[in-house]
Each structure stands twice: as structure tokens, then as C-alpha cells.
């Protein structure tokens, strides 16, 4: 005779091992989320840097592109146009930028979606230096950044743009910026989440109000401060 329908009743002593294993595995996952970045750093240190490059221990970039492809811009053809509310609209070549006083630093690259890459080296020109060259006119409030990918855009307020670590960068990770990282020139805004560091920078326009960029229009805060505050120089607290 069959036992009634669904019942699979063991006829010798058994233990609910499966359920415990299930709960244990799910618990591990929950613990990992709860511990957050700490567990990652712990394992990353334990495993050393050689493993870190392949295993999911933290120092990996995830490459995003809003247009679905990576623009290819030759270093020779590259131009950075700076226009808008400025005294002297200018266009810079890559060599122009490289001839300006350079600034370098190492900083953890932090994405708003939760991955980080420690100790990323950057080298480039302070944005404030370029702004001084073109001469920002009174009444200007913000900068709009455009990308060679034709789709992405970013913004910074004039005050944010004058932070000393905001760079128009041409080196990253100790070498010329690679194509997927935004070659040949991108922004570095290290006090904010990665989406503010626009790749394939093509133009800077000085404007009289903040134009929300691609990611902001998709729900990210216009002021992407890493610490999640509205930031010291945020003129538009409501946006953050």
C-alpha cells in the first residue's frame, strides 16, 4: 500500500541534515551581506594580492558604459573643449594637458553599487588649474561634463570642481588610461562615488545651473559624496 499521498515517512531514525545545511548556507550568505566590506577586506588580506586579482576579494573594477560600447579615441585626435560662461573658451590636446602641472595620488575607487578597488593611482591636471586658464565668469554655478560616448554626462558645482583632488586625468593605475577605463582622458572625483568620475571626457561647459547627468537622471544623487552626506559644498541639499 502507498502511504498517504505526499508523505514520505522515513522508517528508520533520520536526521534533518538537509534543512540544517540549507539554513547554514543561506546563513553564510546573510552573514556576508551583514558584515559587508569588512569580510572582504579580511579575506583579501588573508589571501594576498595574487589571488585578489581573480577571486572576488575586492580589487576588481566592474566596467560600466552607459552607451553600451567603449569609444575609441586616438591620443593624437583627442580634444578637450572648455566653453560656456568663460572669458576665454579653449580647446586642449592631450599634450597640452600633459604639459600642465601634474597632480598624482592614490585613492580607493568606490562604486555606488558596492565594489571598491583599493589604492588606485591617478595622475592628471587639477580641474581648478584649467578653470583658471579659461576664466570662469561671475554668475556661473556649475560645470557640465560631456563624454565621447555621446550618452553619459556629469555635473559638478563650481565649488566642487575647485576641490584640489578633482583631476582631469590621463593616467590611471600607473599607466595611460585604458580604453575601458575612459581613454585617453577622464575625470577623477575621488571624494565621490565612481559614477562622478566621467570617462572619455570630451567637453566641459560652464553653466548657470546644475544639469543632472546620466546617472543622476537614473536616480543617483547629484552630489555623490562617499560618506553619504550632502557634503561641505553642496548648494542643492535637496538633490542629495
Amino acid at each position, binding site marked *: 500500500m*502507498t502511504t498517504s499521498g505526499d508523505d514520505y515517512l522515513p522508517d528508520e531514525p533520520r536526521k534533518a541534515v538537509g534543512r540544517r*545545511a540549507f539554513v547554514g548556507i543561506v546563513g553564510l550568505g546573510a552573514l556576508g551581506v551583514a558584515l559587508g*566590506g569588512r569580510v572582504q577586506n579580511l579575506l583579501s588580506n588573508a589571501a594576498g594580492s595574487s589571488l585578489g586579482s581573480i577571486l*572576488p576579494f575586492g580589487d576588481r573594477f566592474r566596467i560600466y558604459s552607459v552607451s553600451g560600447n567603449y569609444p575609441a579615441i586616438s591620443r593624437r585626435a583627442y580634444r578637450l573643449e572648455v566653453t560656456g560662461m568663460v572669458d576665454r573658451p579653449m580647446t586642449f590636446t592631450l599634450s597640452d594637458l600633459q604639459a600642465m602641472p601634474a597632480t598624482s595620488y592614490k585613492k580607493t575607487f568606490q562604486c555606488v553599487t558596492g565594489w571598491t578597488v583599493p589604492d588606485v593611482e591617478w595622475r592628471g591636471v587639477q580641474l581648478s588649474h584649467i578653470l583658471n586658464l579659461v576664466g570662469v565668469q561671475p554668475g556661473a554655478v556649475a560645470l557640465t561634463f560631456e563624454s565621447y560616448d555621446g550618452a553619459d554626462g556629469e555635473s559638478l558645482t563650481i565649488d566642487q570642481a575647485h576641490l584640489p583632488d578633482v583631476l582631469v586625468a590621463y593616467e590611471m593605475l600607473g599607466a595611460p588610461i585604458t580604453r575601458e577605463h575612459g581613454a585617453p582622458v577622464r575625470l577623477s572625483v575621488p571624494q565621490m562615488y565612481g559614477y562622478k568620475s566621467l570617462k572619455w571626457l570630451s567637453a566641459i561647459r560652464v553653466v548657470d545651473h546644475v544639469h543632472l547627468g546620466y546617472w543622476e537622471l537614473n536616480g543617483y544623487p547629484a552630489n555623490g559624496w562617499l560618506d553619504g552626506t550632502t557634503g561641505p559644498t553642496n548648494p542643492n541639499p535637496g538633490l542629495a
Partner: protein
Amino acid sequence: MTSLDHSRTGTAVRILRFDGVQRAAHWANAVLFTVLIATAIPLYFGSFFGLVLPRHAVQLTHLWSGLALPVPVIASLVGPWGRRMRRDVRRFNYWTRDEIAWMRTLGRGGAAREKFNPGQKLNAVFVAASILVMLVSGSILQWFNYFSISQREGATFVHDSFAFLIVAAIVGHTYMALTHRDSLHSMIDGTVTEEWAAQHAPSWWREMKSGGADHS
């Protein structure tokens, strides 16, 4: 009494091991995992594949396959068609003392006599738990606005780590399937030979013979 759910192929008596619902769930699951891994590779190693693949399409495919992942398992468990599946879930859960010993000694001691051996049970439990873990951690990554940065970091770490574990489990699972043709056969046409059952799953075979729980 015994009207075993079997058919004759050649001379061997064949016993039903997986019904159509279970096989459909298994293969739907297999297709979804394949799509998820295939799309995860270019997303994870983006610096290389991003140059040739439309990232957005890959992302959307990964997202929707991920959201669909629990559907086959859940659909195979509910409803009147899910009786055999539910029964097998109980089999995955309950372990005899012999099986625990078998697992502890990696097959050298104890005995595996049931419909599923402890390795198969563990695989099933791991896959089920992983689906839940991947669904939750993946959702945190997708709808990150609702979570703290620390939780996002944790979710990224968990999602990546489990992805590696899942790939390892699938490689092992596929290897076992390809080297155990009778088992693979039972996931294709649903049956095993009586001989196989008597040799590899004697408890289950006796249960079947006596019209036990799997007799339907």
C-alpha cells in the same frame, strides 16, 4: 500491491526515478544557470568582453534570468503535479545514520542505499540555498538604493563568492553525470533499470517493490 511504474526497454525493467515535472524543472534550471553564467563572465571580466559585447543587453539578460531562476523549482513543488518533487525534497532533507557516516568518511564508511546518495542530497540542498542567496544578493546589487554601502559591498562579495562555488558545483555535477550514464539517463527519460536501483539504491528499490512512497 505492485504495479510498479515501469516500462520495458529491451529486457531491462525500468523504474521511474524522475517524473516529467522534475525533469522539466531540472532542465529549465540548467538552461537558466547556463545563461546566467554565460552572461556573468562578460559582466565580471568586463574589461575584456566589454569591447565586443553590448553590455546593456547582457546585463538585462542576466537580470531577467536571475529573477526567473527560482521559478522552475517553485513551480515543480507546488500543486498536485509536485507530489513527487515534494517527496524528493523530504529525501534530500532526511539523512540516515549510515549516510551521515558515509559523508563524514567520504564514502569509505557507512552506506548510501537511498534514492539519492549524500553527495546528491548535498548538491540539491546547495543549489536550492544558492538560488536564494544569489536572488537576494543580486537584488541588493540591482536595487542598491535601498541598502547601505556596507550591505552593497557585502552583497557584491557574497554574489561573487557564491558564483564561484556554484560554477564549481556545476562542473562537479556535470562530471558526475557524464561519468555515470545511468544517472544521466534517468534525468533524460526519467527511468533507471531495476538492476541499477537494486545495486545503487537498494532501500529505494525495496520501497518501490513494496509499493512504497514513490509508488504513484
